[in-house]
């Protein structure tokens, strides 16, 4: 696919993309615009359709309806190789009967590029990923981390317009995962190509992405920067999915300008009476005398922070973040307060109600 050089529009556009398998709906009217050079994370629980969406963009599966545009051209009916995308698979999908060098050079060889040029590009990629010593080995002789880098290298040598990554780090152990995460971010800064990265791990998404697309059951819940998703979640699902430990949530009613439910709290003015869900993140809950009384059930010490799991007199559970060196212990009594500016309110359908007081 020849890349139109003068093209300056969105790198990828998804318009009403839908995918049904018989009666099951996997994707339901997905719309998205990705700018060139962006690192987009497709985040969501398993079954939300993120991998399917990636496969549709790659051309490995057929849409039921909608359009996908890559570099301004309709890609629906283009073969995968014609879309100028490269993909890193969760299970690496390395060719077992070829050496690392052959694996890396294979896509270039298929494009008919001259052998010397191929060798040059393979060496560059290998050096970039520290695979120089493995070039003559076979995939089954490599460690998981090395295989993953070969998979990455195979995508890099093609110098594609878009990188697609399907949970590439999920098969690595925790330490390696953190290391590779930083590596990928570094690579993205260096190579600068549009990347779409599928993951179910919100920490990965939050640390790596320019923007996150959070999905559930085939529908996009929210698109935004990690900060946006964290600070202004569009609905209850987003509020609980992003951030760990999750946001405290209480369902109740607004009556006479006050929230009544498992807890009682003051709320911003101008809210209509009715069913709402009130949310506040553990780090925003203030411990101050004169607030709502609660008793500590558990103190979770996780190093720099500690999380107090407490319970109000009415039995409402809430989590409060405090300093790691806290001397609090089970059974202590605390008073909590919920500052207005950190309250997040959601209507009965779970969607966020915008309030004036937000910063």
């Amino acid at each position, binding site marked *: 696919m020849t890349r139109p050089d003068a093209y300056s529009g969105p790198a990828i556009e998804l318009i009403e993309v839908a995918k049904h398998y018989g009666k099951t709906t996997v994707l339901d009217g997905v719309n998205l615009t990705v700018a060139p050079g962006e690192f987009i994370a497709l985040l969501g629980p398993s079954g939300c359709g993120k991998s399917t969406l990636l496969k549709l963009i*790659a051309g490995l599966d057929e849409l039921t309806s909608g359009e996908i545009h890559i570099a301004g051209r309709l890609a629906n009916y283009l073969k*995968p190789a014609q879309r100028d995308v490269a993909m890193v698979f969760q299970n690496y999908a390395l060719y077992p009967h070829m050496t690392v060098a052959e694996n890396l050079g294979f896509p270039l060889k298929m494009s008919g590029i001259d052998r010397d040029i191929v060798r040059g590009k393979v060496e560059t990629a290998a050096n970039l990923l520290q695979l120089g010593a493995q070039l003559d080995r076979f995939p089954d002789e490599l460690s998981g981390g090395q295989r993953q880098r070969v998979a990455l290298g195979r995508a890099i040598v093609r110098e594609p317009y878009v990188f697609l990554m399907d949970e590439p780090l999920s098969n690595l152990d925790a330490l390696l995962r953190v290391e590779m995460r930083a590596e990928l971010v570094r690579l993205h800064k260096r190579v600068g190509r549009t990347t779409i990265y599928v993951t179910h791990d919100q920490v990965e998404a939050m640390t790596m992405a320019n923007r996150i697309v959070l999905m559930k059951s085939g529908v996009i819940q929210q698109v935004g920067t990690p900060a946006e998703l964290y600070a202004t979640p569009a609905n209850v699902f987003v509020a609980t999915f992003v951030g760990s430990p999750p946001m405290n949530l209480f369902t109740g009613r607004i009556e006479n300008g006050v929230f009544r439910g498992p807890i009682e709290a003051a709320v911003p003015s101008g809210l209509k009476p009715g069913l709402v869900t009130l949310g506040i993140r553990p780090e925003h809950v203030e411990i101050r005398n004169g607030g709502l009384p609660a008793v500590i059930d558990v103190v979770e010490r996780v190093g720099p922070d500690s999380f107090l799991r407490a319970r109000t007199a009415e039995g409402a559970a809430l989590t409060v973040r405090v300093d790691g060196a806290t001397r609090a212990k089970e059974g202590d009594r605390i008073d909590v307060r919920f500052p207005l500016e950190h309250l997040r309110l959601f209507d009965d359908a779970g969607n966020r109600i915008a309030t004036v007081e937000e910063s």
Partner: protein
Amino acid sequence: MAEAIGLNAEQHARLRLRRRRWKEFGRHVVLGLVAFILVAPFYYVLLASLKDSTEIFSYPPKLLPIPPYFGNYRDLLWDTGFLRWMFNTLFVATSVTVLKVFLDSMAGYALAKIDFTGKRIVFLLMLILLMVPIGALIVPLWSLVSSFGLINTYLALILPPLANPLGAILMRQFILGLPRDLENAARLDGLSEFAIYWRIVLPLIKPGLVVLAVIIFTDQFMSFTWPLIATTSDELQVLTVGIAALRAHGGANYGLWSASAVMSLVPIGIFFFVLQRQFLARSLAGALKQ
């Protein structure tokens, strides 16, 4: 419990060991007997092939072929079309094997990895007709082949066996075992479907191909019914039919018959001795690791 019988632990262990040894001995006896029964006739025939006609009829029979008489083999190789038959059989068996390995692996690839209408019906049809042998179809097959004017040609021997769906079904099974992402990666790398089949799938199912080749080759080597009616001239006779003809014509030349029996076992014996490790051993894993 050992204590209950009045034995201590060591005596009990020794008893167990002895019992085990006896059982093992018993197994060897029975299996040895069975193996003897199954293999002795071959030695008997080997002997007969090395005896002249007077010795064959003698009683008690000589158990060792000294001195060996090679006249039977000379008669076999010189006076009958044995060598020609052997060539025909090997030629046909090899042709069918080579052709079928490719045809069946391609069909297996389509059935396993490509989505097209009618795939399920085709597969079902193959499963249902899998066990219908050529022998049950000789009437219409003969008519069909003769109407093409192909009776008594090599094609008549090579084409009908290609219809057996076992190969396609087997290949489909092997190819299904290959991870889906592997071909997806190949597609993204720009390979055509055929290139994926040729460069990625075939190398990775090599053990399966070997299994298939062995099955097809042995089957063709031993096939009788169809070659019997598909070929009429002596030049095209295959081994099995030729040997049967020996029986029909030459009145009771046991020496010759024995020699033909022994000679016919040579290729298969070699084939299997060579493949014995891959064939009788288990590991067909290797490249099929996920």
